[in-house]
């Protein structure tokens, strides 16, 4: 995909470090499209008006972020093609839009060409203008990339919309759940199942390039860590362990897999180098050491261990030395996940019968609980470190009915909790890196 920046300067800004209770009102004008292009795309993509569809993607993304309030299109006074040339700022001001997104879609040499502009309505200025050319099938990604550019321009931080989520799709009764690996765009589109559900699969996690996935499979009733290439579908067992391996994650350079190996009632942390296949033991303790997660610079590992009697969070150097407990609050702590910014660790906490998703600094200070529920766990960070996705399970009634598992997201601020819609029940989400740039 080719990106051509046209020009830009700084005006409106959105502060994303606080809970945003008054999202910025903005207008996403449908991208204009000429008749000939519209008919070509309709033929190729079976979408009636791809210009409107792309603008809907942008609108949904911006709304979901909780930072923006896209205004109803019914109030728009200016036609899309004219707005993109020269907006009548008085009209947009009238409906209280502070920012305006306009654009144009054309069919050029069998390609999809999209240009879009971001306007500051109050100061009547263009803030950003970009053009892309790509294959028509990429049209949804174009919507996500526009969303990322707008988000970045207005907040000063990278976006997270051109991303995918890998997760476990669940069906069937709670006592005999059928689980499949599934992948979808961050907004729930393009859902695809990657396994058939013949064996139990758990905890998929992307590699940094988001092309490979490591996960736990019960293939032939032997729970082992596997590696899956998403494009080719090739799968292989990671390492040759004489027992259960689980809780896998990639190192930040993508060269190693870190995981637990359980033997004789003890679980320790190991790594395997994917190039030379060398296995290294990182912890050696009679306790359960699991859920390892590297710091983004690869120098440290956070994990949970019950060596103190109960599950708590520890950090250590990546060679296993300097083990230090960091969670000291009330309750038990698990699933530490290092933020991509490196400054925070997200975790699951169980206290007085309820489960919390929270964050703490890497020395354990500044603990903040973001959400409380009957059961929820396994936070995964958006690539910009601003949003967490996790799963939540419901309590069943006296007859054991009413069970469901769903994905949810929440901002680091603790605001903007949202259900992430999936075609089936879902758990164990893992957020990819930003796919473009």
């Amino acid at each position, binding site marked *: 995909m080719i990106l051509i920046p046209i020009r830009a300067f700084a005006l409106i800004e959105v502060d994303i470090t606080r809970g945003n209770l008054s999202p910025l009102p903005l207008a996403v004008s449908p991208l204009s499209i000429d008749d000939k292009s519209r008919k070509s795309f309709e033929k190729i993509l079976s979408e009636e008006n791809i210009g409107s569809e792309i603008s809907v993607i942008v609108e949904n993304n911006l709304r979901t972020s909780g930072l923006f309030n896209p205004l109803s299109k019914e109030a728009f006074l200016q036609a899309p093609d004219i707005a993109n040339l020269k907006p009548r700022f008085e009209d947009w001001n009238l409906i209280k839009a502070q920012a305006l997104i306009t654009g144009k879609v054309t069919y050029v040499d069998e390609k999809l060409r999209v240009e879009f502009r971001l306007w500051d309505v109050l100061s009547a200025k263009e803030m950003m203008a970009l053009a892309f050319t790509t294959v028509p099938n990429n049209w949804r990604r174009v919507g996500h990339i526009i969303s990322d550019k707008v988000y970045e321009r207005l907040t000063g931080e990278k976006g997270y919309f051109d991303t995918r989520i890998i997760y476990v799709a669940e069906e069937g*009764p*709670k*006592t*005999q*759940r059928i689980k499949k690996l599934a992948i979808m765009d961050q907004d729930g589109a393009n859902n695809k199942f990657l396994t058939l559900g013949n064996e*139990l699969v*758990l*905890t998929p996690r992307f590699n940094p390039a988001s092309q490979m996935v490591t996960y*736990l499979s019960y293939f032939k*009733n032997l*729970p082992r860590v596997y590696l899956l290439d998403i494009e080719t579908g090739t799968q292989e067992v990671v390492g040759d362990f004489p*027992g*259960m391996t*689980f*809780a896998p994650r990639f190192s930040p350079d993508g060269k190693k897999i870190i995981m*637990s190996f*359980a033997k*004789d*009632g*003890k*679980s320790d942390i190991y790594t395997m180098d994917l190039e030379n296949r060398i296995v290294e033991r990182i912890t050696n303790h009679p306790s*359960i050491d*699991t*859920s390892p997660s590297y710091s983004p610079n690869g120098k440290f590992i956070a994990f*949970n261990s*019950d060596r103190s*009697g*109960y*599950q708590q969070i520890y950090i250590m150097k990546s060679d296993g030395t300097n083990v230090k407990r960091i969670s000291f609050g009330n309750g038990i702590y*698990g*699933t530490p996940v290092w933020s991509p910014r490196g400054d925070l660790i997200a975790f*699951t906490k*169980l206290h*007085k*019968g309820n489960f919390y998703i929270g964050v703490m600094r890497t020395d354990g200070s500044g603990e903040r609980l973001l959400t409380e529920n*009957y*059961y929820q*766990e*396994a936070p995964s960070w958006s690539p910009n470190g601003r949003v967490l996705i996790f799963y939540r*399970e419901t*309590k*069943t009634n*006296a*007859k*054991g*009915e009413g*069970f469901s598992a769903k994905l949810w997201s929440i901002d680091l601020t603790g605001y903007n909790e949202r259900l992430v819609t999936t075609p089936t029940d879902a758990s*164990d989400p893992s957020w990819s890196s930003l796919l473009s740039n």
Partner: protein
Amino acid sequence: MILNKIFKNTLLVLAACLVLSACATKKEVATDATISGQMQSDVYTGTDSVEYLADGVKDRVFFATNESILTTASRETLRAQAAWLRKNSNINVVLEGHADERGTREYNLALGERRANSAKDYLMTYGISSDRISVLSYGKERPVDAGSSPLAWSKNRRSVTVKAN
């Protein structure tokens, strides 16, 4: 008798473990009147879901929250299993360890493994060769009771002995 001596030592060790764990942690134990008689100190004592490997040989043992220590009743069940396995030396078993839904998935996988190993160690104490026993943890993935109550959880914290051949 040597076996008897081993047994006594095991009991002593287990007793010590029980005391230690009782000191180390205070559990939230279910007090609901309707479930009394089916649970004792957080461990399931009923017979729902229990199956039999042979006449009088129960297939499963139950655990307290977060624990992998065998209760008196569990040891009795496992001794019966060991006796049956000694008589049927051609049979191998898989010990399937499970956890309740009140823990994180990965930790529960490890806990299920620890529970199954606790049962395995006891069977070995009674002369069953480790070659005949394999261990498989399901964590919280395969509950027998879909309920969200202390009683349902207690049924799910288990190690089940399954014939492998």
